[in-house]
């Protein structure tokens, strides 16, 4: 696959301008979300601010990836792309719905990032590959934080996680459908991306305390966004 990709071609750069923007915007949202979470969970504030700082470094790293290919990221597209998820996080934070905040940032966004980065690494240009390999290691730590927090508070947050899953998972599918063609140009296959996401997300729900049956039911909500 890699051998077929021409990183300097107009078609590659055009697709990259949107995918790169999504990644930069996703990381920027993560910075904001972790800072919000630090206010919502004062006992974990120090850790959460560290996570926010890591996400900010990722944002800078991916900005450098775009610059390296001389691609101008289409940030307006990325803003529109994330709008629904951003709105949902803001409403959850404003109403103190911690379960929803953690589902959106610590599970959905982190699992999506991990899946996308893992699928991207084998087809990335050398510069981006090195950066992405380091980023994905951090993202596992972030996912782990969310998992552990939700696991400790499973009884209190279980219903909230289910509600937030039902609302937000279909959004992820819709978002994914919106970038399928661009991702394909970059050598990233939709079905591999979805499968990796479902493995990570389902695994996280299982770690938190949901049964296999519950995980499968919750995962099926994504299909409503197809």
């Amino acid at each position, binding site marked *: 696959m890699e051998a077929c990709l021409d990183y300097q071609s107009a078609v590659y750069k055009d697709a990259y301008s949107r995918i790169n923007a999504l990644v930069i915007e996703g990381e920027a949202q993560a910075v904001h979300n972790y800072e919000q979470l630090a206010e919502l969970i004062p006992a974990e504030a120090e850790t959460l601010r560290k996570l926010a700082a890591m996400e900010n470094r990722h944002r800078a790293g991916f900005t450098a990836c775009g610059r390296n290919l001389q691609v101008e990221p289409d940030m307006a597209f990325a803003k529109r792309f994330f709008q629904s998820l951003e709105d949902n996080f803001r409403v959850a934070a404003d109403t103190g719905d911690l379960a929803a905040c953690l589902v959106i940032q610590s599970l959905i966004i982190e699992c999506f990032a991990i899946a996308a980065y893992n699928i991207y690494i084998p087809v990335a240009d050398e510069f981006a590959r090195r950066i992405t390999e380091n980023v994905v290691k951090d993202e596992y730590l972030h996912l782990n934080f969310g998992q552990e927090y939700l696991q400790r508070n499973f009884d209190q947050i279980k219903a909230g996680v289910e509600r937030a899953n039902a609302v937000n998972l279909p959004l992820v599918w819709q978002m994914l459908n919106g970038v399928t063609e661009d991702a394909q140009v970059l050598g990233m296959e939709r*079905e591999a991306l979805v*499968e990796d996401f*479902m*493995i990570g997300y*389902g695994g996280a729900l299982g770690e938190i305390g949901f049964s296999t049956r519950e995980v*499968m039911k919750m995962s*099926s909500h994504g299909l409503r966004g197809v």
Partner: protein
Amino acid sequence: MFGLIGHLTDLAHAQEVAHDLGYDEYASQGLEFWCMAPPQAVDEISITSITGQVIHGTYIESCFLPEMLSGGKFKTASRKILNAMAHAQKQCLDITALGGFASIIFENFNLEKMTQVRDITLDLDRFTTGNTHTAYVICEQARRGASALGMDLARSQVAVIGATGDIGSAVCRWLSQRAGVEKLLLVARNQERLTNLQTQLGYGTLMTLEQALPVADVIIWVAALGQAMQVDPGILKTPCLIIDGGYPKNLQAAIQREGIYVLEGGIVEHALDINWKIKNFFRIANPTRRLFACFAESMLLEFEGLHTSYSWGRNQITPERMDEIGSLSRKHGFQPLGISS
């Protein structure tokens, strides 16, 4: 803990199982969905040896479907198996058998070179193809079946269809070294491999399928990769013993003629009931006790604490290893499925 990695027969079967399990959202989905579906640990199994020892295991549904191969989606098929293996390793399963097409995909697409699955490096010592036990069971089925039909296996014309595969070549070696079969008919697509096998064995007649079927007293069908056996019963000799080691096993229903005896190859029957729910979804008679020999291999290795890749690599199975796994099989209460079973 042992593990089993399995898959369903086809898309319709997968939809039916999803419905029966109460997942109607999945039951209505087409092949595209199964291409994206993650592996799932769907059953906890416990099995008791006739020695009294009890072991526990997990069944992992890979979500692979044979249509992925017939549709040329080799990358998807490979991903399914690697993801299922990573899932097994994440569940800390000590020894896991790759059932059905899983081991064929692993070997044919050289997945041993792709052992990095996300953040998991596959430890291949935790996996076995189960082929040594399958080969042993098929050979025993041929030996016992021939005897039950009053045939002298050593003097019979024995055709091995798919002779160059991992199981096929092991069967040929056993027939030669343990059963003293004099007239071995070797059939396979790859003529170079077939000639190499003949050289290794020191004898055997190379034939096409069309040449071998009408003259064989015993037919052992172990061809891989979606070559379910299709035979015109009218051309076969009578009596004829057929061991259907292909997948899916469709011969018993397809061949209804007096004097033709078809055995489901590579199936064992346990002396005691096995505690598993997934049995209801195997298209196999009496699934409380019957199972694929490859699955049983991981159980045998777990019983014996042999957490090692017992069957691995192509054409490495020796008659000595088959004797060894056969002895363990009998020790723990497994029997090859026979004509009267």
